[in-house]
């Protein structure tokens, strides 16, 4: 190996780095580091301009090591490695230095300190780069079969998308019937079509599809292996069955919060959740003269700070349904903020207003009170606009509760070695850049198991995740990380501890 000639590319990332770190000073400093042959600052190293400048730098300065100081390797490392490779440099001769997430963003009030730290990090990166050696990646085959966990709308969509592309799919559903949450739902907004009409043909196609093996009333019991070659064991009524797949899609859905103890739920028989109302609407639609629908029940509070996104629309949808059943009914939606994003939902909101649904804003300091003997008779709410208390006579109170992480999430997270986020939903590799995949190669995620989503979003995500999952199966090969452990005979004493310790039985 010839003497290292290191090229250092320091990214401003617009103002993200450049607004805190004195990039020109960092560039000057890096110039003097041992073995550094070229240094430049880029406005955006990851832009087309930045990448071509990097490639040009490699050629012009005969660089044999490249250091990029910018953001996190978790998202951008492959991009820069590819650029190195395109310029004829082995991709393992690249070193990433994170001066954004780990520097400018966390020391943004102390520019001088951040500059010194960026310098330290780059010095470390250059020192490491000098020690890098080119590596060859080994390739391994990919089994052209996929596992989809969860038989709801997301899981079924993913399974069909893969099966239609010619891949064999194992679909695992813990219930006896496919369909998931949609089985419980009456109609879907904004079109008001019946949910069952939507999923019936999908269930039919899944059940009839020759390339989909159904495992209903089943749980995934064991997972081992790696992208392209996972070994799966599924348990069905205690009976175990094993098969191998190349990729995995997680679409296990979410639970709905049961608002026990909130707004008289469990205390008054006429206080229902939205799901329970949908059930009623399907069976024997109730004739209501006064109904109050309360939003954000159990969400956007300190112990559950997130917005569940879909409940506002659910509320609108069911308010409209109640109005349809009895146009004279007084239907109120008590909300903290109405989130009817996008053109369709905004239009839907206007439709509800036109239909005579009343909207009232409440705040957490003055939550609505449910009063009544034996059953909810009145809802007392502070009307901030009018500056007085309103007494709304009701024969029905409906609570909009958020989606919460499925109780099974933790088990599946451990099984697949993929992380859960702070709220307990699955955590994708990157919220913007890798929204439907995990950091672990070959495992993908879609639907409400990742975050609250409505049906169309779940379907879009399912297409995205399954399409991503199809890539390695279509390629037929995956390249394995080239850097692996090896035994150095002059140090090895043959104690065998590594052999018994390795959980992958790789030694």
């Amino acid at each position, binding site marked *: 190996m010839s003497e290292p000639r290191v090229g250092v590319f320091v990214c401003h990332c617009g103002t993200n780095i450049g607004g805190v770190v004195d990039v020109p000073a960092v560039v000057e*400093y890096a110039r*003097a580091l041992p073995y550094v042959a070229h240094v430049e600052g880029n406005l955006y190293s990851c832009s087309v301009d930045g990448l071509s400048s990097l490639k040009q730098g490699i050629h012009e300065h005969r660089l044999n090591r490249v250091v990029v100081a910018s953001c996190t390797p978790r998202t951008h490392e492959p991009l820069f490695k590819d650029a190195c490779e395109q310029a004829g440099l082995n991709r393992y001769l690249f070193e990433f230095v994170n001066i954004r997430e780990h520097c400018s963003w966390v020391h943004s009030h102390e520019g001088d300190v951040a500059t010194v730290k960026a310098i330290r990090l780059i010095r470390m990166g250059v020192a490491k780069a000098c020690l890098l050696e080119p590596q060859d990646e080994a390739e391994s085959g990919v089994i052209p079969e996929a596992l989809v966990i969860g038989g709801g709308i997301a899981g079924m969509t993913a399974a069909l998308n893969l099966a239609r592309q010619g891949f064999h799919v194992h679909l695992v559903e813990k219930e006896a019937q496919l369909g998931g949450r949609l089985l419980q739902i009456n109609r879907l907004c904004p079109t008001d079509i019946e949910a069952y009409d939507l999923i019936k043909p999908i269930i039919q196609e899944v059940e009839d599809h020759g390339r989909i093996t159904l495992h209903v009333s089943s749980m995934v019991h064991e997972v081992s292996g790696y992208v392209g070659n996972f070994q799966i064991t599924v348990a069905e009524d205690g009976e175990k069955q094993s098969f191998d797949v190349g990729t995995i899609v997680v679409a296990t859905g979410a639970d709905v919060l049961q608002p026990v103890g909130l707004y008289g739920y469990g205390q008054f028989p006429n206080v229902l959740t939205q799901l329970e109302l949908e059930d009623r609407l399907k069976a024997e639609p109730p004739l209501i003269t006064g109904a109050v629908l309360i939003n954000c029940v159990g969400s956007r509070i300190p112990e559950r700070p997130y917005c569940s996104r879909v409940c506002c629309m659910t509320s609108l949808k069911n308010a409209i349904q109640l109005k349809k059943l009895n146009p004279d009914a007084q239907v109120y939606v008590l909300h903290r903020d109405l989130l009817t994003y996008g053109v369709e939902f905004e239009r839907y909101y206007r439709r509800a207003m036109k239909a005579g649904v009343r909207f009232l804003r409440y705040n957490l300091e003055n939550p609505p009170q449910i009063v009544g003997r034996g059953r909810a008779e009145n809802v007392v709410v502070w009307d901030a606009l009018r500056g007085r208390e309103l007494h709304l006579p009701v024969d029905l109170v409906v609570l909009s509760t958020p989606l919460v992480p499925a109780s099974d999430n933790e088990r599946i997270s451990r099984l697949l070695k993929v992380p859960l986020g702070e709220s307990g939903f699955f955590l994708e590799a990157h919220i913007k850049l890798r929204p439907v995949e995990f950091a672990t190669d070959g495992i993908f995620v879609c639907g409400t198991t990742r975050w609250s989503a409505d049906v169309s979003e779940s379907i879009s995500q399912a297409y995205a995740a399954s399409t991503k999952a199809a890539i390695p199966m279509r390629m037929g090969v995956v390249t394995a990380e080239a850097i692996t452990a090896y035994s150095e005979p*002059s140090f090895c004493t043959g104690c065998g501890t590594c052999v018994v310790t390795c959980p992958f039985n790789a030694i």
Partner: protein
Amino acid sequence: MKYISREALQTWLDRLANDVTLIAPRLVDDILLYQSVSSAREIVLDYTRPKMSAKEVVLPSSEPILFVEKRGQEVSLTEPSSGAQIIFGLRPCDAHGIAVLDTVFVGQEPIDLNYARRREAITLIGLSCPQMREDCFCTSMGGMPNDPTHFDVLLTEVEDGYAVNTVTDKGRTLVDHLNLEEIKGEPAEPIINETESVLAQEHWPDLFADHYWDLLAERCLECRMCAYLCPVCRCFDVQDQVTQQGISYSKYDRLRCWDSCTGTNYRVVAGGHNPRATKGQRLRNRFFCKFHYFPVEYDHSGCVGCGRCIEACPVNIDIVEVMRDISRAFNASQISNASPDAEKGVTA
């Protein structure tokens, strides 16, 4: 010969400690070592032999021999300097050891500048041993417990004080202004051990291939203690160490550190081959170095008979026993050469 009283010696030593670096036997956690002292009180006078020899003073275990500094593109080299040092209370065997090291490092061209600079500034004030320890054998190696040869000044204990034997001019400049009286009478002769016979160096190669070395080495642990305690063992390696690395300023030390032929990797060459691959070969080298290679090269023994290695070896590899075994084996081989039926070799 002059005389100095105990009190006068204390005063003198206090002054020396004040003026220069005074190195003398001192207790460090109950272990007697030649180390620098700040006053005469710290010095132990009633002793037989410090744990380590005084080799460390002339040849430190880890010594910078060159400082390299890089400022910008400018490189500067500095050689270390050494101030005046006096070793007081040195035993004759240890002075003998330093004399042997002198022959190696400054006895012939090219001389070792570092050693020379350091050695130049050292004055040796000895103290005779009244009696040899059980494991001492300096008398077998051409020394005596009261041998003044290698000192600048040698003190020998007499009643109430010390006889002062000024040997060199360097010693004289130290002692002259003390205005000492002439001594009355002679100090007593030391009690000495029986002399061991040492096989002449020219006969050692006859026993080079003897199985004896492998058998002797069976219990050797291959530590480096014997070499590091030895007043004569002088092997070292030289490596550069980065002590500071920055952009505008870097600093490197070139270090000379003790090494020992008893260590497994001592003789390993680039490519990984080890010409002294077995324990026996390595241990044999230790004795051949002292009794054959050294005499061939420098015309005297590489052992001064201090007995430290005998005392310290945790598995009782006893240099005197080895000397006896080798002499006996050689004699036996002479006889067997005369009568071919006799068994050749020795057993451990």
